């Protein structure tokens, strides 16, 4: 008990120094590129989400997951990916205009799949998987470059 009381007193007495040191630590590591740019992060997340959507669509046609499971998953992918074409261009760390345009060109058809995935055999789900894979690959490449 006495040891704890001493420790609490020490912490109380030196609280200012501890906070100062933490702030110095924070500023130091913030300057060491510990974080990705907003664009890199968003592109990486989008690439992963398109990859997940592609696997979901493939699995539902291979009978590995139910249509209900896939439908629920696509609602979440929609929430994650909707509106990226509006936000991406204005984010910090955005690449050159050509690269950005290439991503946006792949984003549009991939989002059509996300909004209307082929969960039965009545439409060309393989083409949809291809569109998702292309978008996933491009976004992940830009994110990793």
């Amino acid at each position, binding site marked *: 008990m006495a040891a704890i009381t001493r420790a609490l007193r020490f912490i109380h007495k030196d609280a200012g120094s501890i906070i100062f040191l933490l702030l110095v630590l924070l500023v130091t590591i913030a300057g060491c590129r510990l974080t990705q740019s907003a664009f890199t992060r968003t592109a990486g997340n989008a690439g992963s989400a398109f990859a997940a959507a592609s696997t979901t669509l493939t699995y539902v046609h291979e009978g590995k997951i139910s249509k209900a499971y896939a439908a629920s998953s696509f609602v979440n992918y929609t929430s*994650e990916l909707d509106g990226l074409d509006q936000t991406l261009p204005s984010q910090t760390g955005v690449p050159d205009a050509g690269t950005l345009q290439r991503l946006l060109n792949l984003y549009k058809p991939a989002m059509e799949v996300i909004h209307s995935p082929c969960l039965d055999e009545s439409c060309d789900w393989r083409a949809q998987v291809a569109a998702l894979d292309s978008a996933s690959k491009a976004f992940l490449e830009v994110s990793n470059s």
Partner: protein
Amino acid sequence: MKKWFGLALGIVTATGGFLDAGTVATSGEAGAKYGLGLIWAILVATVAVILLVEMSGRFAAVSKKAYASAIREEFGFKFYLLPLLSELIAESLLLAAEIGGIAIALSLFTGISWHYLFPVAALLVWIMAWRAPFSLIENGPALLGLLTLSFVVAIVALGGLPKELLPTLWKPEIKSGELADYLYLVAAILGATISPYLLYFYSSGAREEKWTEGSLLLNRVTAIVGMGFGSLGSIALVVLGAIVLQPLNISSSTLGELGLAMAKPFGQIGAFLFAAALFATCLGAALEVVLAVSYNIAQGFGWEWGENKKPVEAPRFNLVLLLFLLIAVGIGLLGMDPLQLALLASTVIALFLPFSLSPLLVIMNDQDYLGNKTNGRFINIAMIVILIIAFLVAIVSLPLEILSGGG
């Protein structure tokens, strides 16, 4: 023999307290992004949570008091408001995430958008917390929580751990610019696991079950087996994420993605097992959180409390329960994704851990309460070290994540 069925208290505490939306989210994301490179954080959190649960159970069994009432008695009402406030902020976020987790689990079964199922999930939590006896709250989610063992079976079915993954255990691949993300996940794992609501729930549960000094062995076994069980499920999710999702470039940024890892070896049954396990863990956690906060406030303010009492016998306890649930529903209806909410809640919890847990360290060293059952030096030092790690990681990673657009 009957009292050993009290192990259910440990299993349910683990099912809801160790495994919940936050743990499922952080474990899956950890495995998918960093292979086995965050298992160390789960192990640290496991040690911490075993110590905490054992302490809170020992305190309740020996002193015949629950944690919240002891804080007020030992430190006074004004001080009690500090851990209460931190608890209310962090747990309201977490409860919203847990209800969202239940809604997503139901959505994975039905295909209906989780947004529509969110009120249904909240209603389910309210009905169970309002009227179900403590034994049902213990045994229902505990039994369903056993489904998390299927995560371990899935790893075996996938051929076990690939050798090439092993080096990531001690040398995770952290790309340039990803260190803040890695630290954020460390904080989230620690915060998701070392949740202070466990203390309020577990110590109150021990009082509901009228534990005595004769229950200390049971308490120790419960803490180790229950939390060990939860840890096993959490580590299994990391491994599943690493084996299945990482090679597919899936980062497990939505809860349903982890079900794909279960679907690979078991097909539709695997996906359903994942959804059922998610439902059980989130339901268990939601009940624990809402009850823990109600216990906390009722005990701190000296009101009548008890899950085994009819609402009319403990009206203010039940009113708090309803109001807190409504606050969480309000947060949930703002539309934030439950997984992101769970990650944020876990990091906020890590930030508040020193405020929430330091009173326990003091109380556990007070002979007036515990006689010769006070903490040993090792437990005190271990807890202080873990609290400092969790706090430092949270204070460093949270602002960095927010600045870089994450979190």
